[in-house]
């Protein structure tokens, strides 16, 4: 199925009302989806829909992790980013903002710069895999937006991250 016909299917399944919703990917419990299940189709927008944000975030993985004070991509990170790049190439209606983050062990300004290095490393890698630069931008939050709150390596290793946030140009 071409990307274009998938997009058409998506629009058809949701109907006009769903298209107007700013969070259409979350609203999977309406009548349209019941109809979709009956016809044994993949629920559009669900984690099983390979064109969905949910699929990107959960199945491919929206984030990669870094070693302390480093912005080098680990082999595992490269694996995730290879899949992200392939997905972005397939789903060309999506834009990506890459957010760089650091753990709390560091001074505020330095961590903003370090988060930028990490986000930029991800962006450069995606570009090297063929994703158009004009579909992506990055920002750094330094240590300002931790996802885990403990002061141990178990949390720090989750906070030293770059997250690829995708959004569809079709959502409007």
């Amino acid at each position, binding site marked *: 199925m071409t990307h274009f016909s998938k997009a058409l299917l998506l629009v058809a399944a949701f109907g006009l009302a769903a298209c107007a919703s700013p969070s259409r990917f979350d609203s999977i419990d309406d009548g349209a989806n019941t109809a979709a299940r009956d016809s044994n189709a993949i629920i559009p927008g669900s984690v099983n829909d390979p064109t969905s944000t949910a699929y990107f975030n959960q199945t491919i993985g929206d984030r990669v992790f870094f070693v302390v004070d480093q912005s080098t991509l680990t082999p595992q990170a490269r694996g995730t980013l290879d899949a992200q790049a392939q997905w972005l190439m397939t789903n060309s209606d999506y834009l990506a903002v890459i957010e760089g983050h650091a753990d709390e*062990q560091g001074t505020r300004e330095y961590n903003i710069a370090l988060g930028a290095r990490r986000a930029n490393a991800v962006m450069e890698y995606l570009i090297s895999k063929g994703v158009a630069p004009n579909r992506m931008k990055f920002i750094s939050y330094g240590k300002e937006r931790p996802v885990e709150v403990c002061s141990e390596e178990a949390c720090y290793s989750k906070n030293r991250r770059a997250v690829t946030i995708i959004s569809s140009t079709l959502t409007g």
Partner: protein
Amino acid sequence: MKTCLAALLTAVTLILSVQTAAAQDGPLRIEITEGVIEPMPYAVPAFVAEDSAAQAYAEELSRVVAADLTGTGLFREIPREAHISSISSFAAPVAFADWKAINAQALITGAVSAEGGRVVIKFRVWDVFAGQELGQGMQFASTPDGARRLAHKVADQVYARLTGEQPYFDSRVVFVSETGPKNERVKRLAIMDYDGANVQYLTSGNALVLAPRFSPDGGRVLYTSYETGAPQIHVLNVGDVQSRVMQPSEGMMSFAPRFSPDATTVIYSLTNGSNTDIWAMDIASTATRQLTSAPSIETAPSYAPDGSQIVFESDRSGTQQLYVMPAGGGEATRISFGEGRYGTPVWSPRGDLIAFTKQNAGRFHIGVMRTDGSEERLLTASFLDEGPTWAPNGRVLMFSRETQGAQGATTLYSVDISGRNLKRVRTPAGASDPSWGPLQ
């Protein structure tokens, strides 16, 4: 409000001329450079209320004066219960024997009047053992909403006379107020008196804000805001609380701004790709100039008080270290060589020292070193101390301390450059990133 107050604050009025100092062994003086171990004992009896309206102020203002002085760690107040004499008239002669008996070396007497919507405070400082006035009596006046500042002005005079140093009590601090859990922090710019009183909020909390920095005259504040999505330098007028974005380069991240000592220039960090360098922007023309061009991270720049040099941090050697370069850019000299990582350098207003954050062996420290990197001294140690700012007299530092763990919270602390008198600055909520403004 503040500008109105400033206009109303009358300049010093001499209320009494003292006889020319009779030959003395030397004025009562506490030398704070020599590492004071024993604080100087002093007494502040309740100020005299000279009219009924003044009763609402007299006691409170005398307590603010005492809190300022005792809070330095250089002076020890002799409690009221120990006083033998009280002061019922500002003009009456001082019973020195009664103050000597309780070993008060300095005595501060004061009186307040508050009729007609104008609060007037007058004070005298006495060298008890010499039986003489120290300096001359003075008075200050303001509208009622500025009354507390009058007490800071009195304490500043007392501090200056007893230490020979520039004072710092009548000053304000701009900082980031923090509420909410660690993973959902709401940060707002706020301003307060140096002792934590009179907190006012300057931003709403809708956008993440970081690291405010006062202009040299205290009238403006530079800060970093995520209001537009990406971090950008903003400038805010303290008087009318209006702010605007200073976009030095469209679409790029800018942060870590500071004013030059003459307030004509802003130095800051700009991120281009993976590289962060230091730039300068002329405020009037908005013309920008790149000051560093290394592939490493260069950030946290701070001018020397004469404007001739800039200290900053860079990881060009592989770890964060401190460097000094000419204000126009050019060759930088590394000044930090101890173990660990060094960041957030700030040049002292006296020009003699650079304060910094040091990270070593899993601990954070606030420290000071000479401007050539010699004589490094660590003043604090904790899980996370960060971001020192200098009191206007270069004798005290304020910084953020964050506690460990899921419930971790940030608070402000101050410490002497000797490492003594570490104490918490009370704020209504969490607080970080202090910037200490000038003496008003």
